[in-house]
């Protein structure tokens, strides 16, 4: 809004009258009322005990749940990212079996609900009571009780990680395909093999398309971990639910859990912003100069 006087034709300054945007004031008031009234009703609700919220916010079980949630999120995301790149490269392979398998993998894991996958892994013992790893035709090997391996924690990590891989594979594929075909031709004409072209030329450029959405995947993962409570993974949601099942303070503990989820999301959003500034806008300045990619992708100096 400009308020400085504007000079007229003769050079005399003429003051500018203030413009009243009545529509804006009205819209703001209506929006505040619609959004604020229900929130106000919750906050002042006498049946909601804010003292309990404060009491449980730093409860030991809640804090350990927060930690488990972070662990599961990080591990499942890491598993998903690594496996996702693998599935994406398989999907783009000329080998029809590899590419078919990758397509099936993506279809299968995107086509079944995460909840189903979590319960499946948790109950793997119904199919395989023992997990055996041994050298064929010998007695040398290892054996585990499935129920001891497939704890809530591991089945959560596996279920969420395998699921993320399917989605992430599509992101990676899009990133790889978005790199101009001319880059590949230039790499080939220098005498690179397809694998070297992928690693030295295509993947570093695909990263700028692949990396920003990984922040989103992680943020989404933080909250998807709450599904883990069906397999009792001792995460934030599981522990909160166990507390409210005992003391019946459902709303208070949901608020406690939400506060922590929001806090974790805020931190992750901040980190995501930095990641995107690094890789998003200045598209081409990424790989060298100690960027993440330079550390992730080993440089070949023969």
């Amino acid at each position: 809004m400009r308020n400085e006087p504007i000079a007229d034709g003769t050079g005399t300054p003429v003051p500018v009258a203030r413009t009243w945007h009545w529509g804006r004031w009205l819209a703001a008031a209506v929006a505040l009322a619609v959004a604020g009234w229900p929130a106000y009703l919750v906050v002042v609700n006498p049946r909601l005990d804010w003292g309990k919220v404060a009491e449980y916010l730093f409860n030991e079980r809640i804090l350990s749940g927060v930690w488990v949630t972070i662990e599961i999120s990080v591990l499942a995301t890491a598993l998903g990212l690594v496996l996702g790149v693998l599935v994406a490269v398989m999907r783009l392979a000329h080998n029809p079996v590899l590419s078919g398998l990758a397509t099936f993998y993506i279809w299968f894991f995107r086509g079944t609900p995460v909840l189903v996958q979590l319960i499946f892994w948790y109950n793997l013992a119904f199919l395989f009571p023992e997990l055996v790893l041994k050298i064929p035709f010998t007695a040398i090997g290892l054996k585990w009780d499935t129920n001891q391996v497939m704890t809530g924690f591991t089945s959560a990590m596996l279920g969420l990680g395998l699921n993320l891989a399917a989605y992430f594979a599509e992101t990676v594929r899009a990133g790889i395909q978005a790199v101009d075909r001319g880059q590949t031709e230039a790499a080939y004409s220098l005498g690179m093999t397809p694998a070297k072209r992928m690693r030295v030329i295509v993947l570093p450029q695909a990263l700028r398309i692949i990396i920003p959405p990984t922040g989103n995947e992680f943020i989404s993962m933080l909250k998807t971990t709450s599904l883990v409570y069906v397999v009792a993974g001792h995460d934030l949601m599981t522990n909160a639910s166990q507390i409210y099942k005992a003391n019946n303070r459902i709303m208070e503990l949901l608020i406690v859990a939400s506060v922590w989820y929001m806090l974790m999301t805020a931190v992750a959003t901040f980190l995501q912003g930095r990641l995107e500034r690094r890789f998003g806008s200045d598209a081409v300045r990424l790989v060298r100069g100690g960027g993440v990619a330079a550390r992730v992708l080993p440089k070949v100096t023969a």
Partner: protein
Amino acid sequence: MSAGEGRGAAPVVVASDVRMGYNGVQVLNGVDFTVTSGEVSCVIGPSGSGKSTFLRCVNGLEPVLGGSLRVLGEEVGHRLRDGRYHPWTPKEFAAFRRNIGMVFQRFNLFAHQSALENVACGPVHVLGMSQDRARTLAMEHLDRVGLADHAHKRPHQLSGGQQQRVAIARALAMNPALMLFDEPTSALDPELVDEVLEVMKSLAADGMTMIVVTHEIAFAREVGDRLAFFADGLVVEEGRPHELLAAPAHERTRAFLSSVLGGQEGRPTQ
């Protein structure tokens, strides 16, 4: 200006009856073409005549589907063994292409690397040279194309003409026996064309074997040792540039030259 005269007569490219097509459309209908060591061969012709496709066949970017194409003594894309053609593996293609430089219409510099890294990329990743040696070598080649001052800029910080000169330096860093130019000045603003042509002229003067697909008739006349006119996937006519341009034998050539030269004849090239 017949700089290539008498500089050895080893054939570098021998194409006979080369055929190629995709999706049922025939692109090359039997190209016969020979390039001798040290020669600059210019290829002109209307768009869609197959001249770029032929160039891409020479370094194996497109498959030859009929006839014979021998480049640097090898049948491109496959070898004959026990009476059968065995297609090259990706490794064999890669080893073959090391000796052939290619410059593209759209430069195709590696967008995530500086000019210097672009030029050093081949020596480091393909020849296994040390970073230090490759950078020194790259600097020499950038200096040769007049861009030593821009070594640390990214492609997007360079003008089209500068990008194309970096692309030439990148190809030269592999010390190729043959250089292919696919319309190297067609994507450039008119005022940037000459700086690229100058670099190519100096290469020709140094005795580099070159195939240049171009619309720059004046360049072909001045620098070329041979000129081939492509139309409908065939070499319609070829010869020494001066003679062919002065007295084209075929109606197609005449029609093409008159349409191209309409605005270009008086273009200064020095």
